[in-house]
């Protein structure tokens, strides 16, 4: 019964994500005003929500990791892993969309000037190592706890790396150019809807992936019982 309830959550979130994302992108394209100095500005409504969603996934994975260490309940291991998995996927999307934006705005596919992109690269490296750690450690409570500790390190690393990247700019480029586009209310509202849509999409994907992983675990349990 609990399984079917969880899957209802996935259905609900998927529908909500579809509605919010369609509405948000429609608002972004047809209602929010054009930014005068940047024709590719509408990538903003995709790139920034995707990036913030990735942070939310990493944070959620960190929270589940903390719960695991706290309660020693093994189900949090899978939840933390799936959340970080989603975070890496959204992080990769943020890298790609940011790269497209950089290509249009600066004419290059990669720029070390864009802090958020560099931060995502660092986090991508960090969380790829998380997968390596999981895949090369025998499954069991010790792997669960080790992964949880590493996931918590990631949560601490995000602000520290952000600070580090800001500090690194000072010795690489002494002059910092900040281009601050004027954000209007229509932009903010459209952005909010896009962000909510992206977060619910991540939530839905998280629940679907979790259900799949649990089904896998149940299947192998059954196989042992029957065979």
């Amino acid at each position, binding site marked *: 019964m609990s399984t079917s309830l969880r899957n209802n959550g996935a259905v609900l979130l998927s529908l909500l994500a579809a509605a919010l994302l369609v509405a948000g*992108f429609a608002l972004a394209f047809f209602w929010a005003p054009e930014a005068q100095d*940047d*024709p*590719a500005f*509408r*990538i903003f409504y*995709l*790139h920034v929500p*995707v990036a913030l969603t990735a942070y939310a996934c990493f944070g959620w994975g960190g929270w589940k990791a903390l719960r695991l260490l706290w309660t020693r309940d093994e189900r949090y291991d899978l939840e933390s892993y799936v959340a970080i998995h989603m975070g890496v*996927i959204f992080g990769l*999307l943020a890298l*790609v*969309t940011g790269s*497209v*934006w950089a*290509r*249009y705005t600066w004419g290059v596919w990669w720029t070390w000037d864009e802090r958020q992109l560099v931060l995502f690269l660092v986090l991508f490296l960090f969380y790829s190592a998380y997968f390596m750690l999981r895949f090369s450690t025998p499954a069991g409570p010790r792997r669960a706890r080790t992964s949880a500790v590493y996931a918590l390190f990631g949560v601490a690393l995000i602000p520290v790396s952000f600070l580090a990247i800001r500090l690194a700019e000072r010795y690489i480029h002494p002059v910092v150019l900040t281009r601050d586009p004027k954000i209007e209310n229509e932009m903010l509202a459209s952005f909010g809807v896009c962000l909510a849509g992206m977060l619910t*999409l991540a939530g839905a*994907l998280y629940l*679907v992936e979790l259900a*799949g992983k649990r*089904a*896998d675990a149940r*299947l192998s349990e*059954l*196989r042992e019982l*029957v*065979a």
Partner: protein
Amino acid sequence: MTTGEKYVTAAYLVLLGAVLLYVALIAMKLSRIERELDELARLARERAGG
């Protein structure tokens, strides 16, 4: 379509592509689970019959 619009479209297509790729992966997983369930059902039926 201006160059700016092309890049915007490309970025949004990346998201669409990613979601569709995920659907494909889930479909693969579902078909595998279905196959395994069939096998388990056959085993269980044999067990019940014999």
